[in-house]
């Protein structure tokens, strides 16, 4: 007969629902963003861009590096077109206003932007097609009818398309987060999908509170620039208070996902630990190259903060021109993870 006493039963902790941390983070983020964006949209916009613009780009680059394969292989064409599109479209977008303003221009503003938008749409369509060619489970046949339909809409209202990109881009981070959860935390996905319902609720709150609010006070150039970025010149029948609040809210959600949520879930290690980056595992030289790339990125973040402090308006303008690069970079990456 055994003389060893049976172990005392340990009182069990109540099981934490899967994704509770994620839920808490997202609820907090959405609530804070809604309140601040609705209450002080311009100041909140200034603060969020200053604090998070640079870091979110860095974390995005770090995350993408962690997900890119070590070798392009069969995907060389895809990556080559992606790179060419990212650089080419960014440069052309930056130079477009100068060309359109010049005496040599043969295009009006609307036509110039319609052409750029068309190139952008066809670039995405080609990438989707290439993705479909390398993945037999992915039927990409729908992309060309959809792309040409969007091109038609773009030529009817090119500025509407541009505004759609401004407002839809922040949502890309949410799609990428969903893909990351599918890969690394599949049990959290149902909670995450439920949380996504928060966003239209927050937007509805902003709408009901602000859709007929008086225009934002302040006729300084920075306030005007922020309002113009939110499209108050295009949505002229809508309160620019609402537009700026909505845009700032979406940007904050975007920044929050990239700076906080995806690094915690997707990187799962300290960002400077390079062993999780496939390219860094190729060779010592590649490892050094990746490290240098990340260090340069970090320097740019610090430089950006300095420039914001010295001349916020000019830095903001230049940043958003250059930031198109990261917006475009998200697209091929999103196509790879879908």
């Amino acid at each position, binding site marked *: 007969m055994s003389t060893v006493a049976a172990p005392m039963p340990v009182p069990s902790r109540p099981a934490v629902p899967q994704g509770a941390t994620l839920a808490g983070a997202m609820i907090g983020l959405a609530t804070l963003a809604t309140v601040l964006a609705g209450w002080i949209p311009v100041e909140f916009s200034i603060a969020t861009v200053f604090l998070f613009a640079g870091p979110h780009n860095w974390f995005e680059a770090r995350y993408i590096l962690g997900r890119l394969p070590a070798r392009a292989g069969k995907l060389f064409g895809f990556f080559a077109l992606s790179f060419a599109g990212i650089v080419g479209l960014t440069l052309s977008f930056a130079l477009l*206003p100068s060309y359109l303003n010049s005496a040599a221009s043969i295009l009006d503003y609307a036509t110039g932007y319609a052409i750029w938008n068309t190139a952008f749409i066809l670039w995405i369509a080609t990438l989707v097609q290439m993705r479909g060619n390398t993945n037999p489970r992915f039927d990409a046949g729908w992309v060309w*009818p959809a792309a040409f339909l969007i091109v038609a809409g773009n030529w009817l209202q090119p500025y509407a398309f541009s505004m759609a990109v401004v407002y839809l881009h922040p949502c890309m981070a949410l799609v990428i987060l969903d893909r990351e959860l599918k890969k690394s935390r599949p049990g959290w996905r149902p909670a995450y999908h439920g949380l996504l319902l928060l966003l239209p609720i927050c937007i509805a709150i902003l709408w009901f509170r602000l859709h007929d609010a*008086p225009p934002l006070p302040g006729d300084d150039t*920075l306030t005007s620039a922020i309002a113009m970025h939110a499209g108050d010149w295009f949505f002229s029948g809508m309160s620019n208070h609402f537009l700026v609040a909505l845009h700032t809210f979406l940007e904050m959600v975007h920044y929050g996902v990239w700076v906080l949520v995806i690094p915690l879930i997707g990187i799962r290690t300290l960002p400077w630990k390079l062993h999780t980056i496939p390219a860094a595992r190729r060779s010592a030289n590649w490892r050094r190259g990746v490290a240098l790339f990340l260090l340069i990125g970090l320097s740019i973040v610090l430089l950006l903060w300095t420039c914001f402090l010295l001349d916020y308006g000019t830095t903001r303008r230049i940043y958003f021109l250059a930031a198109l690069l990261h917006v475009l970079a998200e697209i091929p990456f999103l196509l790879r993870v879908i």
Partner: protein
Amino acid sequence: MSFRFALLLVIGFGLALSRDARADIPPPLPPAKHAVTVKIEVDENAKGPKLIIPNQVFMPPRGRPLPPRNAPKSELNQQGETDTITEDSTQPKNSLLVVGLALALSMAFGGMWLLKRNGKGSMRSFGVLIAVGAGLTIGAAVWANAPPPPLRERPAPNIPVSYPTALEVKADVEFIYGAEPVRLILDKESYEKLKKGELKMPEKATPNPAPANPPLKPAPAPTG
């Protein structure tokens, strides 16, 4: 760490300064306007000159003019009705040509894909085709007939309107890209009137009117 974070937050919030900045997608220039009333007023107590341009001078007309309150929602228009959307500078030139090509390509590729995916001429393919067509038709109908959203009454600017007028003329207003100066170019006749120095006393101040509808008469095409 939390102190640094708080400091950054404070700096961020404190950055509500007037700085030069520009929009990322520059908005189109409004078209030139003809025969706009321009008044040169004299305020003896003013500290410096001021140029005030009401936004409705440069707000481009978008969509159809607001119908009278009691009018039914408009039907398909017949000829003879003027419309301001002709001069909408947000639409590219030759836009319908490209729209036509794009729609044709979309339909061609779409049909081929539906056939390949669902088998030859399945009812599902047919249904999708009808649904897309119906959607486009409804969209066109809404775009054609929907009035623009009611203009929100903006609070009246805090500008008194009771200064004596030195000159009142009709002028062409032209919008250009560029930096200062803002120029008011007077013709000889107007200049002579101005030189006379006669001040016309203002009428009794009236409450600011509600924002007017965009003009029914289409503005002429922009020059330059």
